[in-house]
């Protein structure tokens, strides 16, 4: 059997688009997260929702719903202002708010939410990922969660002060450093 260009073009369109349509019919064609975390399948925590499956597109209301964490705790933990629509706040937006930390080689983002949720719920989490948490989140965890010594030690070295004083101080320090550098250059 021989094949020419026109037949190949038809086959490409036929297989690609009928494959996609078939996936749509069977409900397997998904181009975004369903916002329902998968459940842990084995071990002590089998049946619990897995915090590792939290994506940047998850809203805080999704996290509150599936992990039963009050929105107020999430708002306070991640330093969201009082006028923020916390329920519709997406995890990936944290990266925009705390983008300035990247200069210091630190990050508060979706990974921080995963860590916070895991520790809050006492679920397993790989601490080797070097994820940071805002200081208020650490305080909430110390108050509400049952943390191990290892976890407390980790949090003490991976907490970031996100208070306005801290930010202003940091910016002032930077400005002072710039002025000092300029003076020394002159």
């Amino acid at each position, binding site marked *: 059997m021989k094949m*020419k*260009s026109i037949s190949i*073009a038809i086959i490409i369109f036929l297989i690609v688009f009928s494959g996609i349509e078939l*996936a749509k019919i069977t409900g397997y064609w998904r181009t*975004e997260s369903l916002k329902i975390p998968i459940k842990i399948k084995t071990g002590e925590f089998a049946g619990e929702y897995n915090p590792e499956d939290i994506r940047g597109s998850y809203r805080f209301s999704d996290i509150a719903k599936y992990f039963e964490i009050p929105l107020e705790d999430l708002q306070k933990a991640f330093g969201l202002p009082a006028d923020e629509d916390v329920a519709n706040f997406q995890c990936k937006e944290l990266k925009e708010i705390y983008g300035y930390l990247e200069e210091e080689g630190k990050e508060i983002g979706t990974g921080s939410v995963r860590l916070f949720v895991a520790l809050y719920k006492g679920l397993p989490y790989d601490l080797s990922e070097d994820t940071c948490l805002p200081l208020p989140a650490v305080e909430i965890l110390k108050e509400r969660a049952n943390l191990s010594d290892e976890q407390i030690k980790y949090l003490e070295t991976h907490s970031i002060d996100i208070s306005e004083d801290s930010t202003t101080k940091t910016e002032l320090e930077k400005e002072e450093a710039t002025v000092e550098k300029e003076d020394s250059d002159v």
Partner: protein
Amino acid sequence: MAKSNQTVKGVKTKEKGYIRLFVQIFFFTLVGLIVINHALEESGKGISWLSSASLHAICPFGGVVSIYKFVTTGMFVKKIHESSFVLMFIMFILAVGFGPLFCGWICPLGSFQEWFGKIGKKIFKKRYNNFIPNKYDKYLRYLRYGMLALIIYKTATLGYLVFWNFDPYYTLFNFWTGEVAIGGLIVLGIIILASLFVERPWCKYLCPYGALLGIFNTFRIFKIKRNPSTCISCGACDRACPMNITVSKSRVVRNHQCISCLKCTSEYACPVAGTVQFATKGGE
């Protein structure tokens, strides 16, 4: 679409490759529109009848790098969804039947390099695509398997798209969004420049997905086949091959670099009808 030509007996008409070009333009445009629609939807102005999926969600290689995580945890690598898995299987089905059709007909980055390379072809003429000596080139072609292994291993161990910051495909369609990494821009810039000298440089030397699909050439159902009894050894097939495969020395092309573009066949470059064909084992 077809032009009459040829002095060789047995040839009436020659295709100029417009059919493949049409398919390439179609998929390039489709991916571009989906990316634009994705950005528009985020600002609430999306086109309702067009998919607004992210570029990651419609990349079949995303499915490949997610296999390990999916098998071990039931989750996908971050930014990857079920759609990538579906497209991965579709491309595997096409590859089992016809080899890497994705590379030669669908991949927008491959098409982009091919189109850009036409400038190089005009500048360097016969020297184009023949700059790298074969003694080095034949080894460099295996670099992409190292790339494939590295990306699959790193993605499996780290759980996110490690390649994203250097991905020229993502950069090509998102350079205008401000979301691309400097690494991606550098890699894309190098590819554009290299395309002036070498046809499809990314596909040949570094593309991890091309490496994987290339393996299917060893057992694909439809193969490029040359009939030695009618071959006049003019070398037209060799010169036409964008991947520098010596078709004239093979009865059946099983080379891992073949992208099933059909440029070497009697439909295009080969001047003798029915001599180089894309056919099954029993096909004439």
